[in-house]
């Protein structure tokens, strides 16, 4: 895991996917601080989702899907937590204990039989239609990253598509919550 210039072989733990969640004060530049830290230290951002989650306390939740060895992920956690406007950082490995969701809007353009086939694919996946015309539709795909990837692969094979995707969101199962320094639920 070492980033030292003198590390010659790098044979340690295997690289895995993780989701990093940071609760931050929603102030100017905070996203740039977090994303800049990732690029500056050579960490990867696979996807990123961010929005204010508490308007009164002005707290935003930043969810970053990344990959690395266990040690690298721990280092990411420590580095992000060091940023002044960050309240808390949690790491979620991809496993059964955590809920993960992503959303995609997919516009399909086609006519006749092809359009019908594409519509049927969405119906099979139980995705919601948000817009329909004789030459196109927009569908909302909701699910795990792998499920959406699979769906996109299939629908792309049928015709022209335009895609907009969110990053992953993550939340731990059960009643457990994350609290800030004052003991307030984040």
């Amino acid at each position, binding site marked *: 895991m070492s980033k*030292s210039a003198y*590390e*010659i072989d790098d044979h340690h733990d295997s690289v895995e996917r993780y989701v990093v969640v940071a609760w931050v*004060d929603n102030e100017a*530049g905070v996203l740039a601080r977090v994303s800049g830290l990732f690029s500056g230290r050579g960490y990867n951002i696979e996807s990123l989702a961010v929005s204010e989650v508490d308007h009164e306390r002005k707290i935003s939740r930043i969810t970053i899907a990344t990959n690395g060895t266990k*040690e690298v992920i721990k280092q990411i956690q*420590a580095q992000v937590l060091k940023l002044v406007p960050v309240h808390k950082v949690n790491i979620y490995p991809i496993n059964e204990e955590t809920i993960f969701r992503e959303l995609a809007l997919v516009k399909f353009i086609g006519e006749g039989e092809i359009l019908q086939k594409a519509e049927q694919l969405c119906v099979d996946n139980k995705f919601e239609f948000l817009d329909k015309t004789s030459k196109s539709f927009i569908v909302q795909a909701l699910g795990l990253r792998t499920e959406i990837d699979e769906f996109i692969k299939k629908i792309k094979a049928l015709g022209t598509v335009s895609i907009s995707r969110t990053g992953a969101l993550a939340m731990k199962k059960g009643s457990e919550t994350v609290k800030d*320094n004052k003991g307030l639920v984040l």
Partner: protein
Amino acid sequence: MSEQLTGAEIVFKALNEHGVDHIFGYPGGAVLPLYDQISKEKNIKHILVRHEQGAGHAAEGYARSSGKPGIALVTSGPGATNMVTALTDAYMDSIPLVCISGQVPTHLIGTDAFQECDTTGITRPCTKHNWLVKDVNQLAETIHKAFHIATSGRPGPVLVDIPKDVQFQKGVYKSANQVVVETYKPKLKAELTSIEKAVELIVKSKKPIIYSGGGVINAGTKASDALTEFTRVTNFPITSTLQGLGAFPGSDPQFLGMLGMHGTYEANNAMHECDLMINVGARFDDRITGRVDAFSPNSKKIHIDIDPSSINKIVKVDVAIVGDCLNVLNDMLTTLKNKHSDFCSSNKEKISDWWKQINKWREKKSLSYKHDDKLIMPQYAVERLYELTKNKDSFITTEVGQHQMWAAQYYKFDKPNRWMTSGGLGTMGYGLPAAIGTQIANPGKLVVDIAGEASILMNIQEMSTAVQYKLPIKIFILNNQWMGMVRQWQELLHGKNYSESYTEALPDFVKLAEAYGAVGIRAKTPKELDDKINEMVDIDRPVIFDCLVKKDENCFPMIPSGKPHNEMILGPEDEEGITEEGKVLV
């Protein structure tokens, strides 16, 4: 209703509240309201530098030699970008700086206005935190936060960017005790369980070593005292990083000298062979570890650091203790004395074989060098400077390169805050402005910048500052006409292809000193060296000392790139064995 003050008045009221006595700065369009205010301030003196980078390094020198934060004030655009190197330098070496920069008026931000740049964007990765203050009523609070963040936890530089219109606007002052930073709570006290675990390892160890760093200096002089007491009580050998020099007395027999790339044979071998390493406020930097996978293979490692992100970053440790060095060392001492009262008496015997081994390594005399009758050896120059100034409580700054390593090897520091050098960033041009800041913080003391002829030219304009404020700093140039460290690496690693490392044209440093209104002295032979050094020390004015040294001397000992601690080069006779792999490393 509370008293209404202008933004500029608020800034200085806040600086006064934090006890600021000196500001290093350079005026410009976007800070004119602040400069208007400076002229009315009774307790704050402004030091006009000749380049903003100089302001930054001067503030660093002030901070490192006084234990107080250094303050810099610069204008927008080029003022701010010139400050970037100094901020990065302070960030790498954990030096508390508060930089105030002017910004174009808020309505012009984002329009590519004259002298506009995205200062907070540019300085985000090289500050601990930064702010753009668009509301005058947030100004006092922001400055208080800036001081708190710069000086607490792991110290570092912060920047407050203030648009010109905000400096004119009127708002309300808020005092420092009304300000809290919810998300920022450095951990100062470590858990007792981790202290106890560490003490268990300490009492069992037969081959221990203490490896101390700049964190001890940053934790204040009491932390250095605690480190000294801990070292004496345990009788353990101690080595130090470049930044930690002076925390434990350098002239003490328990001190093995500096470790790392240009560390002593005994320090590096002890690090490699030890069974217990106690890292106090150091960060396993690559200049220290050498090849990480062969770093101290058989030791248990204790790491004391105030920054949790330093733990397990480079080297995995067995006991991590997050806290302030002073608290942790005191807690360890208390636990040792309470739980293992017999330890101190039994310990000397237990580690006596280890000391025997260390003394064998010492016999190698890895800092010895071939003397010369006709030419001044650079090592000899530093040795003589040390011998002739050691009774003076002197302060040493350096530039970056061979001279810096020779200074670290041959000048011994018995007290903390006496040694100001750019370690992490390795900034050539650091030493002269740092000497200015050091002299400002320590009037009447001897301040010497041990320099190279290449480095010194990077911020030579600050001689003018030294002359203006009658700062009797001494610039001691080891002049070999080469960028010595570059030349050394080219010799050892690039087949003696000395590409662009020789300076064909150099100024006459004696005349240069005189042109600035300072004093120039030149030494050419070992015979005249002592007299000339004494002459330099006795002059109560700034001096440039041009010490002509042997041109092709290399800095040894050296751990070549890609090698572990136990494979050092001690001198020219074993320069073989540098690998192709090692060549690509820095």
